[in-house]
């Protein structure tokens, strides 16, 4: 089922009761049938509010939401959540403690809109439980489950009525790291197999990158960039997105030269670098050069390379296993670099960092 959100706007009255602040302003996006779509952003960015508007748990002040061809929310109109074709998984699991696993999962078929006969209900509940490999727990009271099992029950409950839209509100954030990875894969596989359209809300960029077909990064009640994960990582449109999707170093600079081949020169406090200049930027403009920590190569001297270089002193290094994270001071600025674990990096050592022109990104300076 396609989901179309147009100009969604929602205001909350602020805590002290005076005035209002915009939780969402003019949020628009479109999700294709069967897509796994993620709303990513820091807490308070409006991602959960957007999801809850789609679920019908909040009423938008303005804008429209369509599920398929059906208008479910518009200005002054909101279809109650129980009439929308959705399933939802909550951060708190929201497993009813007074029911067994079976009854939790059977709830939508017993009390929901499309009720089915008892036999059919049992069949479908057991089917979805077996999909989660949880048949053996069917008659266990819900409080006697681990966190991961509870979240599986919640997922089963959201899927059992074969709703075409699955809403997931930070479903993994209360679980420990290992379990999170397992469930991440499970959720992704399931949604693909069942062909449901999924909207996933998270503040965890790794989760978002690993699971999504498309990601919308939200900040201050607005979508700041919407793209496929790879595109988002390699080509962030603003410094906020660049920073939020993984670590990144910023260097202030000014474009001093542009060429036809798009490879221009940028002057920074650390030297003049060659970078690819997007057509939106022109000579003389102030920019930020963004370089990911893993784009740096370490070398003992500056010579023998066409690449950009940067000289600094290692202040601290942390061994992470697959890499070494180095904090390097250069021209008064702290830079983070991730270098191969096989390199020898000694604290206090002077080193050169190299990076290719393709590995750096130019962003307009005022976008911060």
């Amino acid at each position, binding site marked *: 089922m396609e989901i179309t959100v147009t100009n969604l706007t929602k205001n909350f009255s602020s805590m002290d009761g005076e005035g209002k602040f915009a939780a969402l302003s003019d949020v628009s996006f479109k999700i294709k049938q069967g897509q796994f779509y993620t709303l990513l952003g820091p807490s308070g960015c409006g991602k959960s509010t957007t999801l809850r508007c789609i679920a019908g748990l909040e009423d938008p002040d303005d804008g429209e939401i369509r599920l398929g061809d059906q208008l479910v929310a518009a200005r002054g109109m909101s279809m109650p959540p129980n009439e929308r074709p959705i*399933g*939802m998984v909550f951060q708190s699991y929201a497993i009813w403690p007074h029911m067994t696993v079976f009854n939790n999962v059977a709830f939508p078929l017993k009390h929901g*809109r499309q009720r089915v006969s008892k036999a059919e209900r049992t069949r479908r509940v057991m089917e979805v439980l077996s999909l989660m490999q949880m048949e053996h727990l069917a008659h266990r009271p819900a409080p006697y489950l681990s966190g991961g099992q509870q979240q599986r029950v919640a997922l089963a409950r959201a899927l059992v009525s074969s709703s075409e839209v699955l809403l997931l509100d930070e479903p993994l954030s209360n679980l420990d790291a290992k379990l999170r990875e397992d469930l991440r894969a499970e959720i992704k596989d399931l949604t693909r197999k069942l062909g449901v359209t999924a909207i996933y809300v998270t503040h965890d960029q790794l989760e978002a990158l690993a699971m999504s077909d498309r990601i919308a990064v939200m900040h201050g009640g607005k979508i700041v960039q919407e793209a496929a994960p790879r595109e988002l990582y390699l080509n962030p449109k603003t410094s906020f997105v660049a920073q939020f999707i993984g670590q990144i170093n910023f260097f202030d600079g000014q474009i001093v030269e542009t060429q036809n081949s798009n490879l221009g020169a940028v002057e920074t406090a650390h030297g003049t670098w060659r970078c690819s200049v997007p057509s939106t930027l022109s000579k003389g403009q102030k920019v930020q050069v963004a370089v990911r920590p893993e784009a740096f190569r370490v070398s003992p001297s500056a010579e023998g390379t066409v690449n950009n270089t940067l000289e600094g002193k290692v202040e601290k290094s942390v061994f992470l296993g697959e890499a070494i994270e180095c904090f390097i001071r250069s021209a008064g600025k702290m830079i983070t670099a991730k270098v191969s674990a096989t390199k020898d990096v000694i604290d206090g050592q002077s080193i050169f960092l190299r990076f290719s022109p393709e590995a750096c990104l130019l962003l307009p300076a005022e976008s911060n």
Partner: protein
Amino acid sequence: MAVTFPVEQALLPRIWQWLRTNTMSIIVIGLVIFLVFVPISRLLISSFQLGHPAFPDGWTLSNYESAFTAENFYITLARTFWIAAVGTVISLALAVLLAFLVERTDMPFRNLAWVMILIPMAIPGILFAMGWNLLLAPKSGAVNVFLRDVLSMVGGSPGDQGPVNLYSVGGLIFLDGIRGVTTIFLMVVGSFRMMDPTLEEAARVSKASRITTFFKVTLPALSPAILAAGMYSFILSMESFEAALAVGLPGGVFVLSTLIYFTTRVQPPPDYGLGAVFGVIFMAIMILLLILYRRAVNHAERFSTITGKGFRPRIISIGKWRYPAFFLFLAYFVIAVVLPFAILAWVALLPSYRPPSLDVLHLLTFKNFAAVFQDPAIWKVLWNTLVLMLITATVTMLLAFFVSWMIVRGHGKGKTALDILVFVPLAVPGIVIAMALMIAYLSPPLNYLRIYGTIWILVVGLAVTYLPFCTRLMNAAIVQIHKDLEHAAQVSGAKLFRTLVVVTLPLLMPAFIAGWIWVAVHSLRAFAIPLMLAGRNNQVFAVLLWEYWEKSMPVACAMGVLLILALIPLTLLLRKFISQINRQQ
């Protein structure tokens, strides 16, 4: 959920849609308005009407005029205040002392002391007053007879009355003072337990003596809690009706509640207009007191010495006072329970009232107990009592549940209005609610419902009275339930009403059951409202008991004994449930 409807639709379908999405809210709010707002406004209207409320003869201020010019009105008002004030001071002093002894000292038999404090709750106010009436009535009271015998033995001439006269202001103060102890004790004992002991330890290491510490640190730190409990108890005493009826009326000592009862139920012909005025004034006073009380409580909450950490404070050794301290409990127990119960039991076993003495032991009989069950009306009355208990408890708790849900989960002005609306009955004395219902259901348009004189009007009256307590209980319980649990049901396709019934209600079952038992126990012993609204067909046990009290005292006593024996286990059960919930939270 907000009030919502599609834009594109025409007006009529829009209204229909609005009604459909908000059915539950409309029914619940309508019911609350019907229960609380309608009778009270009817009372206000009646206070400005001439003649019988069903056939008013036009508008007038003369009711107010005759109330304010009647001399006995001012005296009654002053007397009501005086009795409540002095009675509260007595119960406050006693309750604080007892709470301190049981929580903070090494007094022996502390568990037993707890039970002795709680048992009085099982004795309805009317039976307590009847018991003391039998003990201290000026002429025939057992204690008075005994004292007169002693006096004449030592050569005095005591006459045929006294020496103690319970039918007086002093008598009512005594009864109110003793009755108030349990409430205040239960309200302050927690603060004694939860108080941060480092406050006292700080005073002790600052070289203050133990006595100085108690008066300069402990008491001031607890004073907000004590003050709040005192004010609450004062409000209850202002409304108290039973003692004033059983003891005040024979001596002509009126208070506001008995004045209303007398004006509308006893004197021929009843003056509803004047009664309504008394009720309105009474209500105004109580609302004022309640506002003061809420301020005091808010203040007390800001004054947070009570951290809720649940540590055991230091036990103070009181040495040779340990046993006298326990005897204080014993004395209180004897006055509050043993003596009144013993005299009721004694009279219940006699063919007619005699003061206790060995000479009449041969007359003892169970005939009165048999008489209770031989009364042809008794089965109907027992049935009424049972039905009233079950229906009131169920209806009140269900209504409280839905109202509380709307208060806790709702937003905006409607929520505040509803919160106030269900709090108001706390300020309306039972006797005033009863009168308001009487007037409202005797006159058009509500008389067409034909519930006056049936069990239903009692259900309405009791439900209104218990609604404030029950909604508070439910509010606290609903706050504990995570919203997501309800939202999960709604996104699973369940309608709001179904969500509440299938998910929310089962989750707060423990609190719901505790509230249910609380209402059941209270409606079993309720007296003022059933008496005020009693007709031929809706008599309950307590009302029949009162009828017997006026025509055959020993049978009334037998009924009283039976009622107390039924209430003791229920009360203890209730305590157990409520303390369980407190522990859960």
